[in-house]
């Protein structure tokens, strides 16, 4: 079947099998390998992307289900050469070790900060409870999100 959707602001049309999962569509068909493919059971959150502004786990969503919708991946966080404050925060606070959970963590964190610009630690921990870091670097991840909250982008990219 042919599906058309917007990915990071660009319209794409591809022929896919109905059973193709969104995470594989992004990685294997479009070559957007920033989104990671982890547990395959909607537990780990490495595959989190946004659809119409809401994060979901792309290993448990069919690409066909997102046809006609707007997908945003981690590749879209950086705008015009400027890192998103969440990306900057993960650098400043060493919010990653192996980096596998990082794209999902950052997409969840950006969603949180858009809705709650100044979340406390427990709010951050609850929000990332569906994103698992097997390096167990949660202390630094929480600090990274707090850093981003303390350093909002001066100009929000369109």
């Amino acid at each position, binding site marked *: 079947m042919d599906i058309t959707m917007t990915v990071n602001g660009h319209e794409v049309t591809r022929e896919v099998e109905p*059973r193709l999962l969104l995470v594989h569509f992004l990685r294997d068909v479009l070559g957007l390998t920033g989104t990671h493919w982890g547990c395959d059971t*909607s537990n780990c959150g490495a595959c989190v992307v946004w659809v119409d502004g809401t994060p979901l*786990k792309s290993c*448990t*969503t*069919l690409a066909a289900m997102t046809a006609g919708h707007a997908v945003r991946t981690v590749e879209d966080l950086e705008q015009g050469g400027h890192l998103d404050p969440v990306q900057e925060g993960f650098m400043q606070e060493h919010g990653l070790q192996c980096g596998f959970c990082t794209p999902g963590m950052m997409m969840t964190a950006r969603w949180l900060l858009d809705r709650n610009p100044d979340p406390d630690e427990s709010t951050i921990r609850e929000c990332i*409870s569906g994103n698992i870091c097997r390096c167990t670097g949660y202390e630094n991840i929480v600090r990274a999100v707090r850093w981003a909250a303390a350093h909002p982008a001066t100009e929000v990219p369109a």
Partner: protein
Amino acid sequence: MQVPAPFEYERATSVDHALALLERHGPDARLIAGGHSLLPMMKLRLARPEVLIDINALSDLDYVRIDGDAIAIGAMTRHATLLDSAVLHEHYPIFRDAERVIADPIVRNRGTIGGSFCQADPSEDLSAVGSALRGSIVIRSSAGTRTVPIREFHDGPYETKVASAEMLVEVRIPIRPSAGSAYEKVERRAGDWAVAAAGAFVQLDGDVVADVGIGLTAVGAPHFTCVAAEDALRGKAATPANLAAAAQQCHDGCNPQADQRGPVDYKRHLARELTLRALTRSVARARGENA
């Protein structure tokens, strides 16, 4: 790599369209809403539909509203919406208690109440909430609409009253003025299925329990409830001893299975302890206390 077996994909644009597609494709067709139960089962070949009918476009089934003397919840209402619903929280804080511990925030953005009930997992939380509140399920087919009490909805694990070419469209919860309600769950880690969980509502007439509902999940309780415990408490004073006696009935009346989440005696213990906590909190809330 886990991928589902091949299937045909259809996207429904209305409830009538979804029902027509179900009729056309027969019993090997399945509706897919959030997909967070069905797709994992399809990856494991535990489910193998020939046709998937996507109902995510049916936004007219995404609502929580007062409808006469009931709260009506549309089948496509997501867990995240239930968690944030002011209407639900005002009448039944049990929903917020439960939703806070159903999966994680990202999964709650997709999973729906209709999907949760139709999946009919024996450890599912909203089934216990709905059973405690003695709600009902509205099922539609091209022949019309029928309503089934939640306590008659489940025919067993993963089996419900929804037949092929039928669709769950609404969950209805009767409004009970000044009722208190609560949900208590023990899970091994954040976002996991319950080791055991219990929910309750209590209506007080002075210090007497005028009416009570109890819901249990993951402990093999028939229809996610314990009628003997409710009968033991109804009409009695809401004292700690009477609440504990009712909770004991849940311990004795449930039928848990030993598995990786724990042995039978531990789950029975939880059924009693969590029921007691849910009843105690429901009574406090019915009295207007901030519990």
